[in-house]
């Protein structure tokens, strides 16, 4: 449809109504025509025919819609070129009114530009900014304080080079953890970073996530649902192994890097983890066999050789909360515990919002985030300044994705503001209609000197009960944030005002009321009255300067959440400690067999003391006395029984290697942030003791190893580890054989082909052709060059 001529015609001709009608009708007709096309392809010609017939008919044609209503279609009046109209004018007068013509042309161009502008803005709106400004290159990444983590990821990917690209055979690097687990709060760029860093290192990324329908796997759509479900684990395994061993045609001959996103919330997370775990075990097996060909090569039959599998493509898993053991929203039997053991963990962090001290500038992390948002701001011409962007970041609590969404949402509003002639400079218009909880907190602490106390109280009252502040205090989540923020700041205000102890006490009673009321649904609405008390008790004319200058609790914004997170982490450590301990120890240590507060309170502290006793700072194997030998034997025995492992862990923050017990209960025993007079659990002295203690314990463990049925894996050095796991591995071998035997033919076939490829995958990876992947009529077969040329 030619918009230009149409609109001009509308402008020219006096009764435009019928033309518009006609337009409308044709539109209707067209749409119905299209829909019939889609629905019933056989009838398409029948529908088309009347159209031709209808061209001769001036009266109109009844068309039935799907809902049964009929519309009469009249033929659209043929609108000839605009010049025709002009020609008419020429013919009538013989002269052209130039002014008139210019006017028309100007109008025309104005209308055209208007149309195109509208179309453009529409197009922009179609795409989410989070997609639009998703970084594509490493340089585009917004670090937001995660530079170190990025480097660690790259470092980990670099370790794959000898395996994948055959760059240089480095012996000691083969033994790294084969799975990378990235964790961190949502919206800080974990997925993007994983994709980009993998690309940067020369991989093509294949992604599996919770959304891309794990249950619709190629092998799982058997007619009966139950059977399909039972097969899902096998199918998943096939999918993952295929992703790892094959090169797809589209990936430019780059090796694949598998990214498993949202592994903690995926519906079949348990299955994924099981598959990954199995793969790693198989890989270890293979690695061991190649390094020790003398002992095992002879025993392995040719069949086994084919089944063995080596992991030679990197796998990156991404999760929000790697300690979510108690989530139990889905089948969380496995939890991430298993995965954590076999994978390298890198945790991403939110940019630190809390200002560390009074006068310091916001940290580098926040600044880089601000600059990143500023780029978007400039590209979209939002006209926000640094301060406003800072506010946005505050509101979204450092969540980059939320920030961009917020900007997109409010950006539209700003656009309309710009069009309006009297451009409003009032910044508050740019904000959400409802007050955010942060501005709510600010309002609560502020007192307007121009108003009397009653007036301003009424103002706040209005704001909360039915004004714009309603949202900030009535949604329970927001109210919680407001109260927490007030709780974080109120001491500063008291300190500034009169420094009396009465106000904290009084306010604490109100906090109790909030705590009590917010739980109860019936009286929940009164909980927001605590907010009013904040105003009456603490509001101050100098609110801004207090906010800036007073800071009794430096990290008041994040401390609550950090505490929660730390306690969750510690609890999960305790659970894993309990899971490993033998039954008799468990029953007598904590009454029951489950988590018990006695454990962090008494048991683990004493355990920590026993396992790293005093006076071990400078002991060498030569200088130990008889009783100390007994002591070490005792420690070793205990370690062996309770399933504790000794490990050398790399601390990315300090860049040093630490000797720790695993499960690592140091974090429960040591209070790093508080100065304690006893230097008992001082990390450095503990480390010094362990330096001399660990080799001795290991020696003892190895001695005691032989008669024991189940050995303890010592992952200190690869050699020891291998030696330890030999018996375990024997058992497992028979198991996997059985499992493999019972798997369907699909698996059997794929296993054979897979192991073939895995042996020489780095150079001669197989080519698969994919067609309709993920659908029931998918075609997937092996092709060679001959197929291409024939």
């Amino acid at each position, binding site marked *: 449809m030619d918009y230009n001529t149409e609109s001009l015609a509308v402008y020219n001709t006096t009764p435009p109504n019928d033309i518009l009608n006609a337009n409308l009708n044709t539109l209707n007709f067209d749409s119905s025509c299209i829909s019939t096309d889609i629905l019933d392809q056989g009838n398409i010609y029948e529908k088309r025919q009347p159209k031709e017939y209808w061209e001769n008919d001036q009266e109109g044609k009844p068309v039935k819609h799907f809902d049964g209503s009929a519309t009469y279609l009249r033929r659209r009046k043929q609108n000839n070129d605009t010049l025709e109209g002009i020609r008419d004018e020429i013919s009538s007068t013989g002269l052209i009114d130039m002014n008139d013509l210019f006017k028309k042309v100007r109008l025309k161009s104005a209308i055209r530009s208007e149309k195109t502008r509208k179309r453009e803005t529409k197009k922009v709106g179609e795409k989410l900014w989070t997609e639009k400004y998703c970084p594509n290159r490493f340089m585009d990444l917004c670090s937001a304080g995660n530079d170190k983590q990025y480097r660690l990821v790259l470092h980990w990917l670099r370790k794959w080079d000898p395996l994948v690209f055959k760059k240089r055979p480095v012996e000691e690097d083969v033994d790294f953890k084969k799975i990378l687990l990235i964790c961190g709060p949502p919206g800080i760029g974990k997925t993007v970073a994983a994709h980009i860093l993998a690309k940067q290192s020369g991989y093509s990324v294949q992604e599996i996530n919770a959304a891309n329908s794990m249950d619709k796997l190629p092998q799982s759509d058997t007619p009966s649902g139950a059977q399909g479900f039972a097969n899902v684990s096998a199918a998943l395994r096939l999918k993952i192994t295929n992703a790892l061993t094959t090169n797809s045609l589209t990936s430019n001959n780059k090796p694949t890097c598998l990214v498993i996103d949202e592994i903690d919330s995926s519906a079949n997370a348990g299955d994924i983890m099981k598959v990954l775990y199995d793969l790693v075990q198989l890989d270890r097996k293979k690695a061991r066999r190649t390094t020790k060909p003398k002992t095992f090569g002879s025993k392995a039959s040719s069949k086994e050789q084919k089944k063995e599998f080596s992991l030679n493509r990197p796998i990156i898993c991404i999760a929000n909360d790697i300690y979510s053991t108690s989530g139990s929203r889905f089948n969380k039997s496995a939890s991430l515990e298993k995965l954590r053991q076999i994978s390298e963990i890198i945790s991403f962090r939110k940019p630190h919002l809390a200002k560390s001290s009074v006068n310091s500038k916001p940290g580098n992390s926040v600044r880089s985030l601000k600059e990143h948002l500023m780029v978007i701001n400039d590209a979209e011409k939002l006209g926000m300044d640094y301060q406003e962007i800072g506010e946005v970041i505050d509101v979204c609590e450092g969540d980059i994705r939320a920030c961009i969404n917020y900007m997109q949402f409010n950006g539209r509003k700003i656009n309309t503001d710009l069009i309006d002639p009297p451009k409003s400079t009032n910044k508050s218009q740019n904000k959400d209609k409802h007050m955010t909880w942060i501005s709510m907190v600010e309002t609560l602490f502020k007192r307007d000197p121009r108003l009397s106390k009653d007036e301003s109280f009424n103002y706040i009252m209005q704001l909360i009960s039915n004004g714009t502040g309603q949202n900030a205090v009535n949604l329970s989540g927001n109210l919680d944030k407001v109260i927490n923020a007030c709780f974080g700041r109120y001491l500063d205000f008291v300190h500034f005002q009169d420094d009396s102890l009465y106000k*904290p006490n009084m306010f604490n009673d109100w906090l*109790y009321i909030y705590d009590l009321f917010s739980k109860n649904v019936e009286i929940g609405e009164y909980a927001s009255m605590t907010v009013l008390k904040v105003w009456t008790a603490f509001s101050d004319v100098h609110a801004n300067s207090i906010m800036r200058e007073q800071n009794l609790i430096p990290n008041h914004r994040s401390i609550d959440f950090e505490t929660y997170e*730390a306690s969750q982490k510690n609890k999960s450590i305790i659970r894993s400690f309990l899971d490993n301990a033998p039954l008799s*120890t468990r029953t007598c240590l904590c009454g029951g067999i489950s988590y018990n507060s006695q454990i962090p309170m008494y048991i683990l502290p*004493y355990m920590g003391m026993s396992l790293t006793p005093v006076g071990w700072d400078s002991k060498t194997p030569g200088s130990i006395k008889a009783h100390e030998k007994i*002591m070490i034997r005792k420690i070793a025995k205990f370690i062996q029984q309770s399933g504790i492992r000794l490990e050398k862990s790399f601390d990315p923050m300090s860049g040093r290697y630490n000797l720790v017990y695993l499960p690592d209960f140091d974090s429960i025993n040591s209070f790093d942030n508080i100065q304690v007079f006893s230097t008992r659990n001082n990390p450095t002295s503990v480390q010094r003791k362990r330096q001399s203690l660990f080799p001795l314990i290991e020696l003892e463990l190895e001695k005691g190893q032989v008669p024991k049925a189940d050995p303890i894996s010592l992952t200190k050095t690869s050699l020891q580890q291998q030696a330890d796991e030999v018996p375990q591995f024997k058992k497992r071998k028979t198991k996997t054989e059985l499992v493999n035997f019972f798997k369907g033919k699909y698996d059997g076939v794929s296993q054979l082909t897979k192991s073939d490829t895995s042996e020489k995958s780095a150079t001669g990876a197989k080519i698969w052709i994919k067609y309709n992947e993920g659908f029931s009529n998918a075609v997937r077969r092996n092709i060679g060059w001959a197929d291409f040329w024939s």
Partner: protein
Amino acid sequence: MSLWVDKYRPKKLDQLSYHNGLTENLKALASTGDFPHLLVYGPPGSGKKTRIYGTLYELYGPQVEKLKIDVNTFTTTSNRKLEFNVLSSAHHLEITPSDMGNNDRVVIQDLLKDVASVEQVDFSNSAKSKSKHRFKVVIINEADSLSKDAQAALRRTMEKYSANIRLILVSNTTSGIIAPIKSRTLLVRVPAPSETDIADILSGIAKKEGLKFKPDTDNAKQELFRNIALHSEKNLRRTLLCFETLSMQSETINIDKNTLSLVSIDWEVIIANLAKSIVANKSVANIAKSRVVLYELLSHCIPARTILKRLLFDLISLNNYNDNITQELTEYAALFDERLSLGQKSIFHLEGFVARAMLILDK
């Protein structure tokens, strides 16, 4: 070799060394072959579970020692899967309701019905008199943390299935347990052992382990044992752990003033320091400082009520047990303890107590 807590744990009622009257009663109970539902309560580390297992041993013989852990799965009404551990032998099973969260009512009902609907048939020693125990014992740990719903569900089940099932509830206090349950059970209180009891046990262990002491006199040793007992709040489990840790530190245990500082626990030291700073500096700035400390303690999984209790006792002792102050502090500690159990934000209430304590001490 294992921990002393494990190694020196009595298996039979005869081996128990203190609360002899109670032990006699339990023995008499077990010998009749039948017993009512029990509610065993007492402070932690006083030997509740040891006594229960001793009684079970008396009833069923060594079979109760063959324990295994099952992971039961349970599907709730909203189709969520729930997992919890069940510790069981042939004759009893043991559950902890805190595993189950809010669904404890449904789980307990289901589990008990399951157990109760199957009558115990004991083929192994049918000739003996013990075959008449046709019931299974279900031990419920931390019974006071059962929700009111679950307790209400228990009361009917206890009567209905009493032919096949016996319940033993274990808890620290009876205050969390509703009256109907109390009336249906035999209340057994296991008080904490006295200092002399603990000292006896410790000296027995010291002899068996062949420990050496620096001033090797009986008086000094007794003094040390008593001090350890006091230091660990007469919690026998803690006492044993503490003693073992002490023995691990050096070859001979030097008995002097500093002995116990070797095994002091960091969080207790921190709370003691907090109490000192509260007494010394009563200001808003100090409230803020103590808030940071409280957060740190909470993040290390120290229960809020324990912090409160410990802080109260430290404050009282720092004020030389002044009557007025003690009375007032305790009153408010009780108030905030209630708030802790009613509310959810423990930091509010802990800080409230700190602020209140400052106000009281400021007078």
